C-alpha cells in the first residue's frame, strides 16, 4: 500500500493536499464563530495579523472565518453536483450498455448532442434568469450539474460495453449468473476506479463552474463562497486600495482545491489504466 503511494506520486500529493484542506476546514468549523464570516462582525480593512490570521475585509468580515465557511460551501457544491452527475452517469451508462438497442442509441445520441453546447454559457443564462432570492448553495449545485452528466454517462457506458466482452464476464455467464448479478458482482467492482475518476472529474468541473459563476457576481451574494469573496473584493477595488489580502486568500484556497483534485484525478487515471502507470 505504502509502496503504491510512493509510486503514484500525484495521487499521494493530491490526497495529501485534500486531507490538509479537510483538516483545515474541520478544525475551522469547530472553532470559528460563523457570524464572523458575515459583514459588520469585526473591525473592517485590517491586514493579516495574529488576531485576524487572513485579515478582514471592507465590510468587517473575518477572512479566516470566511475562508473556512467558503471552502466548506465550495465542498458542498462540488460534492453535491459531483455525486449527482456521477450517479446519473452510472445509471444512464449502465442502462444504455445493458439494454443496448434503441435505448442505448437514444441515450448516446442525447449525450452527444448536448456535449458540444458550451455548458458554462448555458449555466450563465440559467443563473442570471432565476430569481436571485432562489440562488443558494443548493441551486448553484443544481445549475452546475444540469449540463455535466453527459461525460460520465459516456465513460461508464463505454467501459461497461468493453467489459461485457472481457473474459471474466463470459466465464460468469457460463457459470449461470443472470445479467443483474453479473453487473453488480462482476462488472461494478471492476468499474470502481473509473467511477472514482469520473466522480473526481465531476467535482472538479462543478467547483470550477460554480467558481466562475460566483466570480462574475452570479452566486448567492451574501455567502462567503470563495468566488463571491473575490467578486466582492473586485467590486470594492481591493487591489487598488491596497487590501491585497482580501482577494489573495480565496484565490490561493481555490488553486489548492482545484490543484488537489487535478492531482487526484491524474493519480486515479494511473490506477484505472495501468499502462499509464509510472515506470519508476
Amino acid at each position: 500500500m505504502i509502496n503504491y503511494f510512493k509510486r503514484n506520486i500525484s495521487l499521494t500529493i493530491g490526497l495529501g493536499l485534500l486531507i490538509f484542506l479537510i483538516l483545515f476546514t474541520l478544525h475551522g468549523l469547530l472553532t470559528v464563530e460563523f457570524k464572523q464570516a458575515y459583514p459588520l462582525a469585526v473591525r473592517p480593512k485590517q491586514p493579516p495579523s495574529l488576531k485576524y490570521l487572513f485579515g478582514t475585509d471592507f465590510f468587517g468580515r473575518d477572512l479566516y472565518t470566511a475562508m473556512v465557511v467558503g471552502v466548506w460551501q465550495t465542498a458542498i457544491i462540488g460534492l453535491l453536483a459531483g455525486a449527482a452527475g456521477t450517479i446519473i452517469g452510472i445509471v444512464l451508462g449502465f442502462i444504455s450498455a445493458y439494454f443496448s438497442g434503441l435505448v442505448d442509441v437514444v441515450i448516446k445520441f442525447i449525450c452527444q448532442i448536448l456535449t458540444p453546447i458550451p455548458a458554462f454559457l448555458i449555466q450563465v443564462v440559467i443563473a442570471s434568469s432565476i430569481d436571485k432570492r432562489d440562488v443558494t448553495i443548493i441551486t448553484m449545485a443544481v445549475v452546475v450539474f444540469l449540463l455535466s452528466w453527459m461525460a460520465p454517462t459516456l465513460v461508464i457506458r463505454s467501459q461497461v460495453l468493453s467489459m461485457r466482452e472481457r473474459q471474466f464476464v463470459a466465464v460468469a455467464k457460463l457459470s449461470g449468473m443472470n445479467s443483474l448479478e453479473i453487473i453488480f458482482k462482476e462488472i461494478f467492482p471492476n468499474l470502481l476506479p473509473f467511477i472514482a475518476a469520473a466522480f473526481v472529474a465531476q467535482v472538479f468541473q462543478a467547483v470550477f463552474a460554480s467558481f466562475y459563476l460566483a466570480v462574475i457576481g452570479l452566486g448567492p451574494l451574501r455567502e462567503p463562497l470563495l468566488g463571491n469573496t473575490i467578486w466582492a473584493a473586485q467590486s470594492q477595488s481591493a487591489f487598488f486600495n491596497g487590501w491585497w489580502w482580501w482577494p489573495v486568500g480565496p484565490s490561493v484556497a481555490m488553486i489548492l482545491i482545484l490543484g488537489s483534485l487535478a492531482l487526484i484525478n491524474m493519480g486515479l487515471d494511473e490506477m484505472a489504466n495501468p499502462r499509464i502507470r509510472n515506470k519508476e
Partner: protein
Amino acid sequence: MKISKLSIALLAITTAFTMLTTSLFAGGHSLAKVPREQTLVLGWSITSPIGVTNPFASTGYTHQEANNLMWEGLSYFGIFNDEEIPWLADSMEYTKSDYTQLTIKLNAMAQWSDGTPVTSKDVVFTFESQKNNNKLPYHANFKQFVDKVTAVDDKTVVVDFKMPAPRFKFQVLTLKFDTGIPIVPAHVLSKVDNVNEYEGGNDMPHSGPYNLVLWDANQKIYDLNTDWWAVKAGRISMPEVKRVVMFNIGGQVGQGMDVVAQRVVNNEFDATLDMRSSVIGNILRQNSKVTTHSADKPPYGYLDWWPNSLWVNTQLEPYSDARVRRAMSLLINRELINEIIYEGAGIATIYPFPLYPGLEKFANSAAVKKLEAELQPGLYDPDKSAELMKAAGFTMNGDDLWEKDGKTVGAVINGFEGIHSDIVPVLVEMLRNGGIDADINFGTDAYQNMADGKAGLYMFGHGASLKDPYTALELFHSRYSAALGTTAGSNRFSRYSNPEYDKLLDEMAPLGGDDPRFQELAAQALGIYWRDQIDIPVIQWLHRIPYNQTYWTNWPTIANPSLGMNGAFWAHTGMLVVSTLKSAK
C-alpha cells in the same frame, strides 16, 4: 520538424488574419491628429446604440454619453451658485402672476451647426412634439400642463398653461443634472417620417459646441465646432478643448473601477464617472495632479440630487404596518454607516431630498427642526425596534429572527450591483442583527421587482427636488399608489396612500417655493413622511469625480465654482464643464 513548422505557419496566418479583419472592421477612418494636450479623455460606460444622436430617438438616446455636447437648452442651472444661466433663450419669464403663462425670448445669434438660425419655430416644434408624441420623455408633463404654444415672432414664444405651473420652467425647460429638454431643429426633424426611429448619426445639425466625428464600440470622438454661435453671442469664450474622447470603460456603470482608477492615476483619463469613497482617496494619494470638488478633503465630491432610501412597499405585508417600517429604521445605525463606508464623512441622511441651498434652508427652519426633535427620524435603537416588532405581533424564533404566523420578515433588498455593492451588504447585516431576515438581490430583475411591487424593499434614489421640497414629497402622493402587480409609475415605489397627506400636497402645488404657506405645508408633509416612515432614508448621494489636472485645469470645485455647475461631464451641464476647461500646458 513538420509539426512545429506547421504550427508556426498557422500562427502567422491567424495573426495576419486577425490583424487584417480587425483593421478592416474598425478601420477606414482617417481623422486629423490632435495632440494629447488639446484632447480631453473621459471614461464612461457607453451603452447606447452606435449612431443615435437624435434626442427624439426613443430607443437608446441619452444625453449622458457626450450627446450633451451637441444639444443645448433654453437655459441651464448652476446649482452651487443657485442661479440660472441663460442660453438659447435670453430670458424666460412667467408673464401672468398665477403662473399660467410663460414668455420665452431667444438669443438673436443662436444658430444650428448648418448655419440655420435657431428660431421660435424650433421651440414650438420641440414643445408640440413633446405634447403630442407619447414616446417622448416629457410627454406627460406637457400633456398635464400645457394648453398652447404660440410663436409671437421669430425669436419669441408664449406658452399658455391649463393650470398654475410654477415649477414647469425649472423642471422641464431648464437643463440641470439629468432633467430638462434640449431644443431640436425643426427644419431637420419635421422632414423625418418617424422622429422616434430617426437615429441622427454623426451629421445631424445641432447647436452645441462639438461635432461627433467617430463612434465605434471603444470610443466616441467629438471635435470642436470653431463656428459655435455661443462664442459669437458672447455667452462664453472659445473652448480650449479641441477634441473630446469619451472612452468606453465597459460593463455596467460602476464595475471594475480599480482598473479605471489606475488609468486616472496614469494620466490616461482626465475625468471619469464617479468613484466609491475609498477609491477616490487612494487616487489622490497616488497622483497629486488629481483633485476633486472638495479638493483633497473628504467627502471628495459634491452632493448629487439622488439621496437613497430603503424604499418600502407600503401595500405589502408586513411592511404595510408602519410599526414594522419604523422598527426597521430604528435598526439602521447611520453613524456606523458613515464610519465604515465613508471614512467618517457625514453621508447618512434623514431626508428624501438633497441639502442644496434652498432645501437646506427648509431643513433648518424652526418648524422642521421641531418635528425632527419630536419624531427622531435618525434614531438608532434596537430595543425600541424590538418593542415595536412585538407590538406588531412578531415573536423571536430560534434563529433570532422575528416571526409571525410562521413567517419571517423576508426582507430581500433589491439594488444595483455597480452602485450599491458597498452599502446594501451593510444594511442587510444591520437588519439581520435586529432580527429581520434580510438578503440581497442585485439581479437584472431588481428594477422589475421594484416596479411591480413583488418585493418589499428597494435601494433607490429620489431624483426629484433641487430647489424646494415639493417634487420629492410629491413622490408619495396617492395618485401614484398603484395596486400591487401594476407598475409603480416613474419610480414611485412606496405605493403610499393617505388623503391627509394628499391634501397638503394639493394645496402646495400652485404655490411658489418661497411662499410662507408652502413652507408650512411642506413641513407638515415631511412630518407625515417621518411619522409614517413612508420609506427609510439612508444616504445622500455623492458624486466623487476625479479631475486630473495634468492636461486640463479650471474644473468646477468649491474653491473655483466657475458657472456654478456640478462637475459631472455626463449631466446636461457637462457641456459647460467641458467648454470652460483651460489647458494646463
